[in-house]
């Protein structure tokens, strides 16, 4: 112990002074969710499996594949279950981790076409939800 203590006297402290010193996030860090809607079928499995109920899938037009995904950042537990539930590979987690904020509305993110997002935000009636099988393919 004496050796440890004396060498510590001449060492740089192990503590880092965040936010002045920032460590680089590891490659696999599970940060903010990202949605790529090209393949999305609107099946809503991500919303169904989300343990924190942070995801909602809004279907505006089933045939035209117009979907809006709303994502409540402060409820998300960053478990990445949705990423694995999605059979179409639409979801991924980014390395963005500095997510603190001071008002709750700012934590609500809408993914989708801006025009569609506006429809969801304004609270207009939406299309019916999509029934789908376990693979996430819309039932015919």
């Amino acid at each position: 112990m004496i050796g440890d203590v004396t060498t510590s006297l001449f060492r740089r402290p192990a503590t880092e002074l965040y936010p002045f010193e920032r460590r680089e996030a590891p490659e696999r860090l599970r940060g903010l969710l990202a949605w790529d809607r090209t393949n999305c079928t609107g099946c809503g499995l991500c919303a169904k499996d989300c343990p924190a109920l942070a995801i909602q899938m809004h279907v505006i037009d089933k045939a035209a594949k117009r979907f809006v995904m709303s994502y409540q950042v402060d409820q998300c537990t960053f478990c990445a279950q949705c990423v694995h539930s999605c059979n179409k590979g639409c979801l991924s987690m980014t390395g963005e981790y500095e997510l603190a904020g001071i008002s709750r509305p700012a934590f609500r993110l809408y993914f989708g076409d801006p025009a569609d997002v506006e429809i969801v935000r304004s609270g207009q009636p939406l299309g019916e939800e999509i029934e789908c099988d376990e693979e996430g393919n819309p039932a015919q």
Partner: protein
Amino acid sequence: MLDAIRSILALLVFPGGLFLLILGLLYEWIDRKLMAQYQNRIGPRWFQPLADAFKLLAKEEIVPEGMNPTLFVGLPIFGLAGCLTAALYVPMFGLPPAHSFPGDLIVTLYLLSLLTMCMGLAGANGLGRFSLVGATRTLTQLFSYEAPFLLALLGPALVAGSWQISEIAAYATPRWLILTQPIGFVVAVIGLMGKLELPPFDAPEAETEIVAGALTEYSGRGLALFRLGKGAEMVIGLTLIAAFYLGGVANPLFFLLKTLGLLLIVAGLQSLFARLRIDQVVGLWWRYGVLLVLAQWLITIVVEGVA
């Protein structure tokens, strides 16, 4: 008239009073910073103890039910006053003591113990269980380290042939008594740690068992005064040991160098050991501390006699 003003200045500004309080806060910071460095941490910023003191002074003081309010308010003031008075007889900052008379060493040491006594009484003055256990431990510890610590500081007095701090300091100035009385020096340093309730002698305020010990019920002003007193006590203790054992503190530079050197050792010792239980503390002091000091005395007396 002029004399009276000088006395008041000495008590309120230098070497007692303001100067001592600030130096106490500074030394507390250095101690914490060194501990942090030993533990590979960053530690507090330089103004942290000062900020704590201001914050506590500004806070509302809550007098818990069942306490005697006069004692509750009076004890911290009494304790701190004891510490400030003690500073008058000590060669603070390398300058000669403000007051001096034969036998002032004993008076100084008892003035220092006054703070601990006050803390013990403050803990016993109430119904809080943690404070009561803490008070018992504080006083138990006081009675265990007091004798060896006193004996260790009397070692240099013995060879100097005087019980007056200024004379002992003058005698010790060219001589490094640490070389002739190493055991006494070790006991004095460890005794000081016991007096200040620093780890591993922090059983009286062991947070994992009894929260904050005797001071659990204190908040606001009382707590601030006790903490300021602790800081002052540390400075005075370090000064005494440096003056007696480390070749004196003849000028401010030596004072700073030597007391800070001592503090480095004290902080190192603090980070090296696990907390001792109160029964182990008592056993340590009475079984080894006293015997070691007496052995040191015997050696000193024999050597003096031969020489």
